[in-house]
């Protein structure tokens, strides 16, 4: 799995680094801990919010919101659901495929997948820590509107509307 690969790589690099310079390696680990500890409170809060959101926005509710809706209202709904939720890709893509099978349009699914990836309402507290409120707001708003362009093209190309 991807995660174990990362651990392996990092352990290898740490060993090389330690071999070359013990003091620098210690400094690197200290810095790593400091920046991790810095963001930990926000991260923990976000994870709980994600848990609550996903428990409420289950597949049934999502498909009711965007399932058989068509047109731009459905697209707006899908974009909103994608923007608010934070679903890991390996859950999101099969869910999207399921929604397609149960009658959702490509345009709606395009909007959902796009905002899911680009817009992070729940992760905004973490983003604000690094980029400030204004920049975070602007990036997310731009990404939200851009997702409609993505949805439109996907609807045209894949859905053949």
């Amino acid at each position, binding site marked *: 799995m*991807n*995660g174990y690969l*990362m*651990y392996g*790589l*990092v352990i290898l*690099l*740490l060993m090389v*680094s330690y071999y070359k310079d013990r003091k*620098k*390696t210690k400094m*690197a680990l*200290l810095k*790593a*801990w400091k*920046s*991790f500890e*810095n*963001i930990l*409170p*926000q*991260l*923990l*809060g976000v994870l*709980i*919010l*994600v*848990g*609550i959101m*996903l*428990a409420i926005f289950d597949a049934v509710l999502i498909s009711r919101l965007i399932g058989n809706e068509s047109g731009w209202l459905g697209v707006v709904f899908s974009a909103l659901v994608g923007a608010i939720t934070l679903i*890991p*890709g*390996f859950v999101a*893509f*099969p869910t*999207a*495929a399921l929604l*397609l099978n149960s009658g959702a349009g*490509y345009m709606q*699914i*395009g909007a959902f997948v*796009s905002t899911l*990836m*680009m817009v*992070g309402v729940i992760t905004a507290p973490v983003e604000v820590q*690094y*980029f*400030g409120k*204004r*920049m975070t707001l602007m*990036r997310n708003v*731009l*990404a939200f509107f*851009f997702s409609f*362009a*993505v949805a439109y093209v*996907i609807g045209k*190309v*894949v859905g053949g509307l």
Partner: protein
Amino acid sequence: MKLLKRYRFFLIAALFLSILVLRNRELGIEAISITGYSLKEMILVIPPIFVLLGLLDVWVPKETMIKYMGEDSGLKGILLAFLIGSAAAGPLYGAFPVAAVFMKKGVKFSNVLIFIGAWSTTKIPMLLFEISALGAKFALTRLLVDIPGIILIAYVLCTFADQAEIERIYKKAESM
């Protein structure tokens, strides 16, 4: 007291969770199990990223990063930002600490934003997964629209941000 303030957001979220458990037991337990699941995902992905960042911070000189991704890096910097972002693993919140180290090392702001965009939408492992679930036509169409979109969003953000704001963000990254 300081600790309480730092963890305020976490405590409020935990309070919401407890209210949910009390009012709707089934939904609350579902929420707890999903939180546990994301916590596991975080533990798998986030610590190596931070250690990697620590090593990068200590070993890679600022001059090197400026040369490859700084003010005058041009197309090379854009391509590198795309490549690094696309090769990454993990949820979007993992990208922000990386962005902070990039800024510390003098990476151009537009390249930092392109990196964030690439991390969010053009990750290669996710793309393979998307193709298998939604089909190549869907995934590749999205990718083709998203690549110019990422660059566009990065430059629009750069235009709207004034110099003072960018400096403030860079200064903040210095203390992270």
